[in-house]
């Protein structure tokens, strides 16, 4: 009887259970597939096996010694046993070894409660130690940088942080120093670490050796309220978990999304959380006789509606690219329908901006790994705008993708560099250099056989959503033109004809940032409404100040640079402050709008009617505009 032999699959048994996995699978992963947990410390799914901790040793039939499950690949017919007497005795032995020089200061350790060493000691370890000598002593609370503190006594030398530094970020900042039982982790000449990815060290550390300065002694893990959200740092859209205690943010942790962040965060984003920490209640204020006077929210909203309406359409609206899609959706409706003003924008000041279009994101982040050539037009400027991109690029490079980082003006070099037989070319640039990116794309499109796609890094966690939803003077939601009815963009607001402005500054990280000229213009307005979370340098020019909510205090959706619509969650209660969308609704209702939303999710439903592509929100997928026609 003929049968199809699938040669790239192997079947083995683990503890008597049969499992079939692809060739090249580690015993550890094959066991995991059938729910068999093999304890590990050094092994990490994103790093090459090193087999140094020796925790995962298991019995493999026909092999005389116990084998590291984290480093031995499966073979057909392999018989693995993970719970034999020999293995269990050894597991107790290796944990006893790991603990002889570990301080066991769990009660005061930040990691206690989410510590692999603690957990596995409970599960696999000996109840007591037979070691009754003086432990080896090392430096404690060593500042590795302004972000990270290292406790060398807690370190079990698993090499995860040093391998991250070598294999994931490629910076090689952390290294092993000394040898034997005296081995320590450190930086060259004890200089402060400079990496922008240090926070990841604390997450992969299987003990409490590497801790974040910002989180030290802040909370026990079990006291944290955990909320899934998106990093407010940039337009990358890295998935985070906001860990809060007593309604205060303790830390941002990564929440792996292989398509976006690959499980990592940058320090800029991770340690941005104090920016979103509320410092007490702030009352709304209204300018009366030249002075800002505290009022109720209702009064402030009425004053804002009044002042904006009086400008009779000559009103400018700026919404932060950190606002949610729901807020932006209401914002543009407020302006276009209620204030009869097309003068809205979300961008930084620049004399001219190239028009955005859906093609700015035909290259998904994860596809960088599947390109054969990637041009980073702008080099470090692109990395600075979305730092986690560096990790994806470095990973791609390690897998053989050729990456060229050049100044935005050097497109000619890139045109030569990419060979004609390239299969898939990616171009990365910031939105400031869209023209250079599209020029290069066009040129390479003619030159190479394969596909050429671009991905533009926009400003703010919802910069892409602001484009999609038409927070632009010349596009309606969904990139629909205005047939000559375009409004004025931010660069033109100061040139006359605008009498009032509404600045909706949802995040201090993505503020309005007025130029000198803009300040002059703003100071001459009849009405300036500042709707923002934190005190702004523009407050002293404002007529109405409406305190808003922090990114961590609201729910909704944001769209990352590649068009992925993702939900942010309300991690912190701020009931005394109306949600930003409520303020927008209240102003619109004052101006006659019949809106009656009760939840931010009600707005999402309406938004989907207008832009069906955003249905992707329920799947965490990218909005594919090509499906539109």
């Amino acid at each position: 009887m003929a049968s199809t032999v699938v040669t790239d699959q192997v079947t083995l048994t683990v503890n008597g259970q049969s499992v079939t996995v692809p060739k090249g699978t580690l015993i550890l992963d094959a066991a995991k597939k059938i729910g068999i947990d093999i304890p590990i410390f050094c092994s990490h799914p994103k790093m090459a096996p090193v087999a140094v901790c020796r925790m995962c040793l298991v019995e493999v039939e026909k092999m005389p010694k116990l084998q590291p499950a984290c480093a031995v690949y499966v073979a057909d017919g392999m018989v693995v046993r993970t719970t034999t007497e020999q293995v269990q005795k050894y597991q107790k032995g290796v944990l006893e070894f790991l603990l002889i020089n570990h301080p066991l200061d769990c009660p005061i350790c930040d990691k206690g409660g989410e510590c692999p060493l603690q957990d596995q000691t409970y599960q696999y370890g000996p109840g007591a130690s037979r070691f009754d000598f003086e432990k080896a002593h090392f430096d404690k609370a060593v500042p590795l940088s302004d972000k990270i503190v290292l406790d060398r006594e807690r370190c079990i030398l698993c090499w995860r942080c040093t391998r991250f530094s070598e294999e994931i970020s490629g910076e090689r900042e952390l290294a092993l120093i000394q040898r034997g039982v005296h081995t320590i982790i450190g930086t060259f000449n004890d200089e402060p670490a400079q990496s922008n990815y240090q926070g990841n060290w604390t997450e992969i550390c299987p003990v409490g050796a590497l801790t974040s300065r910002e989180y030290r002694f802040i909370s026990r893990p079990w006291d944290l309220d955990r909320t899934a959200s998106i990093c407010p740092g940039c337009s990358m859209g890295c998935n985070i978990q906001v860990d809060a205690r007593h309604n205060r943010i303790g830390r941002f942790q990564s929440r792996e999304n292989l398509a976006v962040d690959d499980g990592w965060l940058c320090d800029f984003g991770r340690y941005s959380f104090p920016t979103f920490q509320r410092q007490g209640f702030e009352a709304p204020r209204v300018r009366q006789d030249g002075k800002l006077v505290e009022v109720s929210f209702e009064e402030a909203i009425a004053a804002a509606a009044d002042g904006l309406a009086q400008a009779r359409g000559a009103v400018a609206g700026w919404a932060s690219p950190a606002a949610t899609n729901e807020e932006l959706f209401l914002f543009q409706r407020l302006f276009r329908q209620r204030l009869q003003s097309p003068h809205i924008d979300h961008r930084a000041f620049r004399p001219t901006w190239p028009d955005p279009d859906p093609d700015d994101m035909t290259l998904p982040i994860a596809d960088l790994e599947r390109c054969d050539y990637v041009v980073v037009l702008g080099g470090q400027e692109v990395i600075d705008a979305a730092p986690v991109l560096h990790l994806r690029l470095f990973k791609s490079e390690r897998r053989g993708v050729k990456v060229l980082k050049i100044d935005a003006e050097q497109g000619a070099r890139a045109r030569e560099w990419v060979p004609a037989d390239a299969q898939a070319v990616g171009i990365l640039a910031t939105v400031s250099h869209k023209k250079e990116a599209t020029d290069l794309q066009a040129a390479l499109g003619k030159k190479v056989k394969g596909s050429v796609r671009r991905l533009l890094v926009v400003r703010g966690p919802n910069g892409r959503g602001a484009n999609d939803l038409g927070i632009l003077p010349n596009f309606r939601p969904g990139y629909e033109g205005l047939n000559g009815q375009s409004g004025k963009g931010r660069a033109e607001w100061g040139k006359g004809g605008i009498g009032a402005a509404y600045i909706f500054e949802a995040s201090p990280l993505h503020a309005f940032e007025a130029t000198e000229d803009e300040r002059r213009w703003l100071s001459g307005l009849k009405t300036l409404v500042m709707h923002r979370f934190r005190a702004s340098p523009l407050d002293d020019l404002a007529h109405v100040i409406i305190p808003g909510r922090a990114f961590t205090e609201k729910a909704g959706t944001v769209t990352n640079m590649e068009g992925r619509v993702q939900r942010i969650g309300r991690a912190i209660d701020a009931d005394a402050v109306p949600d930003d969308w409520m303020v927008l609704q209240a102003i619109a209702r004052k101006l006659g709008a019949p809106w009656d939303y009760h939840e931010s999710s009600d707005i999402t439903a309406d938004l989907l009617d207008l832009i069906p592509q955003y249905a992707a929100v329920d799947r965490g997928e990218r909005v594919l505009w090509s499906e539109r026609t």
Partner: protein
Amino acid sequence: MGLKPVLTKDFGTEGLRQLDAYERTGGYAGYKKALSEIKPDDLVELVKKSGLRGRGGAGFPTGNKWSFLPKGMYPRYLVCNADESEPGCFKDRYLIEESPHQVLEGILIAAFAIGCNTAFIYIRGEYLPQYEALESAIEEATAAGYIGKNVLKSGFDVDVILHRGAGAYICGEETALLTSLEGYRGEPRLKPPFPAVKGLYGKPTVVNNVETVANLPHIVVNGADWFASMGTPTGKGTRVWCMSGHVNRPGNYELENGTPIRELIMEHGGGVWKNRRLKAFQPGGASMMVLLPEHLDVGLDFDAIQKAGSLAGAGAMVVMDETTCMVDAARRYVKFFHHESCGKCTPCREGTFWMSNLFDRFEFGEARPGDVDLLLDMGYNIDGRSFCPLGDASTWFPRSVIKYFRDEFEQHIAEKGCPFRKETEAAVAVA
């Protein structure tokens, strides 16, 4: 059986370190013969047929090791392991010191056999005079046209690079040696891939011991049958044994494999010093298990020694007389391994630290009942669980001592100190 100078035959010849004297003794004849008469593949076969096994410790057949190199993958490297650091071993030092050209010729023959154009010698950092001897040998050989492009018009290009280690025992382990040679911390690498497939700089690499390569010129000149006619069925040829300890005439002795240990110690070594009785001896070096006078008739041969419960290792023979405290001997070795553990893996790093502490307790009279079993249990958790043989080997000698001399441990516990040396002060001095 008995003394059989092959490698050491001409040692003592005046000026043997220099090229001309070496050539007068027949030096470089093997290299010339190989280049002009033998194809590299046939050379590999010749060495396979000779039965030569690696002299570095593991005793792996040299020709087989060579033939593991994947076909068609170049460049490939030959690394001569001259990082002799095993306590009790000093044969490589002797071979280099007396006749650096013999070692170099062997390296050149091996390089030719495996198709390597760049050979490396990784020499122990402390071997400075030996480094200088090799350095000038390389200079002379280069000037004579044995090293360089198109050697002796054979079309064979070869370069030899001499590299000094920085004194870490672990760098004698072949993968740690390669890592160190590349400029990184000397730490062993995960195997597979084995060096033959992915070694130095990720290229196919053969690592051969000094004594192994020193055999090659003689095999080429005299033939595989001649070599195979010496020794035992599974251990052909001779070995240079490094005898030290409580013996009248310590030193290097080249003996035909299979010669009884008794002959080495009692005849060539002149017996135990000070007319004392033999208590124990340790073949192989610091790593290996202790043997007793009852094993004196075991032959000096890989398999025979293994059968007796120890290993021939790198050819050391440490002799211990009746006054030796076996607990202290084990303690010294454990301290050596504790000091030399690279720290990469948990069992070795932590286990040698703990064992070292525990042995101190015996020495200083603080050991308690149960400590011997604790040592054995620790050995169980280290041996075979460590990343590389360093950790495993740290347990072999102490465990063999417990096997044969457990009563001495019990005595240490009962008498609260070392029965061989009551003055604790003296023990403190060496701690």
